[in-house]
């Protein structure tokens, strides 16, 4: 079977799963397990597609459907970039659905018929977005994705916040998509085709002939992708919408959907817009948008008390890192293919890593909510003792997102910093961006320490015992956390595919091969052959850390004869309730909160009312139709007054009428 055949079969299985879980919607567990089963079967086929693509090269294109009315072909194909995203999507899809089966039993009053089918449709549309090769089908899948996720956001329909968040999410994204639609139409009108390669020609012509229009179109595309990815200020929908959805869905959003903004960015800037000065200029815009976003997003995250809201702001922050890496890459591509490639690799690798640890974190937050019944960090606490596996996974993911070596988040962040510093020899201010990014990495660590401390450490605020979540909810978390560790220890393994995906988009740019860019492993060697090679060797570092840990535990503790005592917290002799002595999450980083109070302004938009005079003008009945009808009525009653009932008067009318007729006739003849 051909690659595209496998793809079609896999996606059809997912669609069938959506239907099956809808039909089984009244039976909670059956619906969930059915969707997991279909996702696994379809996912295996998609995995085969991915493997085949990376071994045998991109698939040829195939026309799925022809819409003759607008001369549009709906085209599918799988290239390296598609394969990379298909791999992420299948992996996260299976895990989030598996997690959701048990998790959804929390929602006793809500049918899962409005959860699992939509989740599957979401994954189908994501698979569609990354495998289409023409703008029209891209747009359709892109919007289908928004529709499906909108209904997931408003899953808890009684909550007003959820409603508002859903509305904001859909309207903001719709606005951005309509902008992209307009941009796509402008290109289409030049070449009469929606195929990406045709659009590339259109861009080439446009950049030469009407550069202003070309930049406007690029801006519209950028806006659409930045909005989806959650870059501020367009991404302000994200911290509202993410927490509103059930955690399984949030993990899917964070792991897959948001990443499609990055996908779009890569497609447009590397495939559709030809390499030109425009690439360089827009690379700068992308990088700066990324820095702004990571700065504001992460600092705002520091202030949050709601676990999921905190993590949602970190999505914004982390997307900022990806934009920074990709933006630098685009900016540097013309100056030095090596540095450009490194920036792109760093950004895309960070995206891959972020998918893993952010999904894991959202699932962990879901597990906490599942057992403790609250998402507020000030209300939960001390869960680590009861939920050790969840705590371990959440801890691993939290350290990964904070960029603690030797986890995967460090590897990609290190690449971003190293690229910036290396490029700083030629463009000094890039180093500034790197410094901001490094500072924000610390802020990330701080805010996740707050999460870990607030949720898992300390003492329980209530005496109610909790249990670890069921195995079906643990497996996804463990799988994700393990992948985080593996990608951190052998970063070159995933980077090989990232490299194929990025260079596959720019076949003619002459980008260096992997060994030249990052060495031949197992660690990373930035830009082999250039002076001042930067090196990151995760395995020795990890080994050293392990040795150090074992040493401190066994040698120091054992040798010192320290014993572990389980006693209540000492409150300086005062007799206080444990809650009063509890250091809640809301008390963390108070000076920071004061210092950055206005960094994330809340703006309420109220549409101006229509002026009264305009309303009067529009009310045609009042000044046109009603007066006309009244006038006709008055005229009719005037005419009716001629009917007096006296024969002589009628005779008079007849005579007058006859005179008038004769006069008219004479006038016509004469």
């Amino acid at each position: 079977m051909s690659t595209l055949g496998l793809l079609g079969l896999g996606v059809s299985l997912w669609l069938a799963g959506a239907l099956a879980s809808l039909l089984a919607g009244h039976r909670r567990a059956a619906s969930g397990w059915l969707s997991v089963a279909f996702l696994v079967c379809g996912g295996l086929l998609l995995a085969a597609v991915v493997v085949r693509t990376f071994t045998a090269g991109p698939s040829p294109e195939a026309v799925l459907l022809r819409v003759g009315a607008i001369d549009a072909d709906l085209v599918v194909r799988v290239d390296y970039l598609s394969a990379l995203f298909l791999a992420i999507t299948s992996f996260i899809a299976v895990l989030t659905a598996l997690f959701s089966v048990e998790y959804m039993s929390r929602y006793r009053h809500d049918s899962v018929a409005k959860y699992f089918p939509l989740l599957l449709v979401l994954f189908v549309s994501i698979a569609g977005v990354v495998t289409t090769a023409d703008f029209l089908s891209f747009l359709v899948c892109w919007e289908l994705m928004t529709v499906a996720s909108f209904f997931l956001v408003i899953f808890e329909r009684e909550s007003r916040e959820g409603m508002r968040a859903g509305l904001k999410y859909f309207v903001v994204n719709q606005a951005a998509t309509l902008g992209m639609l307009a941009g796509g139409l402008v290109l289409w009108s030049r070449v009469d085709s929606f195929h990406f390669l045709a659009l590339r020609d259109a861009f080439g012509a446009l950049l030469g002939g009407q550069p202003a229009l070309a930049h406007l179109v690029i801006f519209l595309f950028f806006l659409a992708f930045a909005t989806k990815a959650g870059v501020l200020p367009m991404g302000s929908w994200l911290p509202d919408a993410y927490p509103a959805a059930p955690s399984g869905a949030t993990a899917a959003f964070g792991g897959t959907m948001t990443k499609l903004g990055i996908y779009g960015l890569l497609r447009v800037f590397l495939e559709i817009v030809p390499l030109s000065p425009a690439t360089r200029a827009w690379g700068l815009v992308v990088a700066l948008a990324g820095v702004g976003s990571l700065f504001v997003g992460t600092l705002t995250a520091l202030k949050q008390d709601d676990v999921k809201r905190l993590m949602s702001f970190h999505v914004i922050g982390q997307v900022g890192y990806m934009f920074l890496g990709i933006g630098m890459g685009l900016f540097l591509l013309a100056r030095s293919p090596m540095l450009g490639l490194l920036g792109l690799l760093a950004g895309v690798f960070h995206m891959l890593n972020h998918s893993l640890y952010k999904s894991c974190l959202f699932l962990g937050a879901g597990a906490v909510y599942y057992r403790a019944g609250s998402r507020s960090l000030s209300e939960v606490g001390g869960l680590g003792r009861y939920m050790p596996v969840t705590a371990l996974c959440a801890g691993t993911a939290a350290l990964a997102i904070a960029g603690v070596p030797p986890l995967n988040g460090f590897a990609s962040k290190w690449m971003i910093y190293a690229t910036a510093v290396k490029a700083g020899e030629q463009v000094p201010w890039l180093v500034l961006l790197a410094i901001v990014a490094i500072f924000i990495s610390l802020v990330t660590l701080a805010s996740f320490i707050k999460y870990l401390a607030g949720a898992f450490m300390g003492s329980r605020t209530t005496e109610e015992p909790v249990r670890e979540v069921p195995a079906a909810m643990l497996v996804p978390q463990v799988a994700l956390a393990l992948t985080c560790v593996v990608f951190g220890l052998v970063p070159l393994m995933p980077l090989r595919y990232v490299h194929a995906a990025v260079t596959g988009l720019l076949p003619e740019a002459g980008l260096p091969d992997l060994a030249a860019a990052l060495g031949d492993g197992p660690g990373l060697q930035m830009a082999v052959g250039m002076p001042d090679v930067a090196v990151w060797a995760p395995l020795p570092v990890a080994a050293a850390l392990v040795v150090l840990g074992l040493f401190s535990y066994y040698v120091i503790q054992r040798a010192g004869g320290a014993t572990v005592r389980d006693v209540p917290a000492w409150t300086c002799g005062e007799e206080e309730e444990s809650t009063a002595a509890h250091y809640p999450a809301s008390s963390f980083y108070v000076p920071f909160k004061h210092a950055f109070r206005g960094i994330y302004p809340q703006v309420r938009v109220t549409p101006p009312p229509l002026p009264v005079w305009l309303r009067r003008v529009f009310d045609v009945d009042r000044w046109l139709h009603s007066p006309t009808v009244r006038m006709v009525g008055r005229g009719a009653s005037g005419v009716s007054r001629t009917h007096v009932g006296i024969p002589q008067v009628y005779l008079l009318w007849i005579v007058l009428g006859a005179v008038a007729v004769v006069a008219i006739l004479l006038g016509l003849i004469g």
Partner: protein
Amino acid sequence: MLSAALVLMVVVPAFGAVVAGALKGDGPRWALSVGVAALVVLIGIYAALAAPGYRYHAAVGTLPWLDAMLDGPVFGVMLDPLAAVMLLVATVIGLFTVLYSTHYLREKNREHATGHEGQARYYFWLLLFLASMVGVAVSPNFLQLLIFWELTTLCSWALISFYQDERSLRSGFKALLMTQAGGAFFLVAVLILFVSVGSVEFTALARLPDGLRLWVFILLMIAAWAKAAQVPFHTWLPDAMAAPTPISAYLHAAAMVKAGVYLMARSVSAGWAVPPAGAIALGVMALATMFIALSYYFVQDDLKRLLAYSTIAHLGYVLLGVALGGLGSIIAFRGGVLHIVCHGFSKATLFFCAGALAYVTGTRSIAALGGLARSMPLTATAFFVGVLAVAGVPPFACFWSKFMILAGAIELRGGIGPVLVVLVLVESLVSFAWMLYVGQKVFLGPVTRLAEVHSDPPPAMGAVLLLLVLACLLAPAIGIPLVEMIGR
């Protein structure tokens, strides 16, 4: 054979109307009405499949005293892609309307309980309406079109006034008066055609001298505006919401107002000889209508009135597409015609949902409703699908038609294209946001007192909603191949 089928499509429902009016029992009347409407749909499908290449034209009868003066027969049938589109919409939605009505007009209806009396009148006019819409669709010339056109006016007058209270009587009269006034302009246009070229064929429009052609087109345009509730004649349509909801659905989605845009599509596509000034006027007024209708959205509390303004705006889309077609963009024209189908099915979905809400809760007030999704999941699903479809969110119906209209617009020369695209997109976005807001208000959030109900509407109404949800997805699949044949 084909002409017999087409004539039957008019005769069967007309005859069925008389029988349905004469029957004593309600049960047989419902069965007969549904049967007749279903039969018409079946014949319609046969006709659509049997027409080779969609260029069918046959004479049926003539008037002896006009014979010598006209170049063609007075009465006949015609089937081309445009007529097929109209037939499809009018008959299928007609069937849905009849089916839905059999359960809507009952004692159990909490908004307007309807007993035995009135049923005969209702089905008589409804089936006659169906017959006259089919007549409009298959008319081969302006004169026959005018006759059926006036017949639809008459039927809608009777049906809008169906409840016979003060408000509905006034609304019915208003609708009659305004569309009739527009019909007068149509009549004058036909007379001018008759006098100056001795023909009432659609193609005769192209044979007129330039100046006169513009005037005739303007007269036809005024008639279409009045019929299709375009500014400045838009005021009758929101008032016509006094009609029973299935009738509103039929009026908006398939009949009456669609006859207006159909006239414009006919006039423009007959010979493609519309003077540019006329086409520009049509387009400008369509845009104005879209925005004026939009400005009314935010102050509506009655769900049906909101939908009425939305219909006005969407007919503006159709006319915009037709106008762009007149300016030379065949894609936009096809998009406009496709919008007749897509808007028809999506708006019917929304109206039938509004009807289901009124049936179950007894109110149409947006403010009084809330949190209905829990007790009425099917209606909620259908409503949201309807909103997405009407707003043009892919992959639902109106996306495809709007996309084609936009694609046509961007090809216009002289920089006006992008401006049009921006305006249309702004209207789309704002109306989408508002409809979504209203959908959330009615179906999500806390449950209000009036919304404490326990079930979706009865099965017949539910089945119609389910079918329409499918239609919202599949309408373009049937519509696009049809409109592709226009202008070839």
